């Protein structure tokens, strides 16, 4: 089944709120070799004007991932996980994610382009905080092969 072009413009519900924990930020920071103290030490983060530790810039993927799961869960998507390659990733920030944030992601498929036997699927996940203010928009381009049925 090829990728369903009708995914573009489909309405996806917001994900359930993700509460960013201080220890999760520390764990993620260690995993991406983020040794700057703002990611692990609340006092260092507060000195920069943040209420708690600052998540590394790519931490937004954790919330974006929940929105991409919604895409994969669409029964008519035509997307099979083992045929998916991550081709491109972008983040556009209004502010960094900080421990204590309660984040919600909202997915939109913004484009599907055929290239050879593959589909290039562009998705945009808008991540907002508990007040509804924009935090970061995460954009992925996935290359989806048709593979075998």
């Amino acid at each position, binding site marked *: 089944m090829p990728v369903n072009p009708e995914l573009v413009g489909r309405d996806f519900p917001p994900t359930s709120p993700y509460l960013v924990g201080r220890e*999760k930020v520390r*764990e*993620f920071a*260690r*995993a*991406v*070799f*983020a*040794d*700057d103290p*703002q*990611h692990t030490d609340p006092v260092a983060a507060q000195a*920069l004007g*943040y209420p708690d530790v*600052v998540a*590394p*810039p*790519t931490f937004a*993927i*954790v919330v974006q*991932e929940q929105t991409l799961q919604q895409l994969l869960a669409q029964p008519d998507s035509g997307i099979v996980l*083992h045929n998916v*390659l*991550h*081709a*491109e*990733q*972008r*983040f*556009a*920030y209004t*502010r*960094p994610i900080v421990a204590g944030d309660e984040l919600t992601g909202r997915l939109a498929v913004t484009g599907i382009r055929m290239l050879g036997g593959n589909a290039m699927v562009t998705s945009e996940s808008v991540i907002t905080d508990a007040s509804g203010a924009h935090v970061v928009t995460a*954009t992925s381009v996935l290359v989806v092969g048709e593979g075998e049925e």
Partner: protein
Amino acid sequence: MTALAVGDVIAERTVHLTRESLVRYAGASGDFNAIHYRDDVAASVGLPGVLAHGMLTMGLAVQTIVPWLGDAGRILEYGVRFTRPVVVDPESGAEVTVLAKVGAVDAETARIDLTVTHAGTTVLVKAQVRIRLA
């Protein structure tokens, strides 16, 4: 911040990845795709070996400039294209080298270009960070 000139090297580092690094990233990120820790699964889908998560490479690359920035909140945008995989040997691991240079400067922002290489090849293309200057 002192004036930046296009071509200035602002930071560089080499990170040594091991299989433990991949397991740690899997746990921290929630990405448990088995191609990142099981040789048999990687081989079964035709890969040359267990690969580092693309998002791990992207994540460690930008972190190279954070101490120089002083505040990660000065990052306005960050994007990469994943072009070549980083194969992580079970015994010797893999080295990833990041070089950060000024790519463009205007009145309020600058573009930092990251050159990210492994075993002599570039693994991320158009790895660019747009930052606020003040």
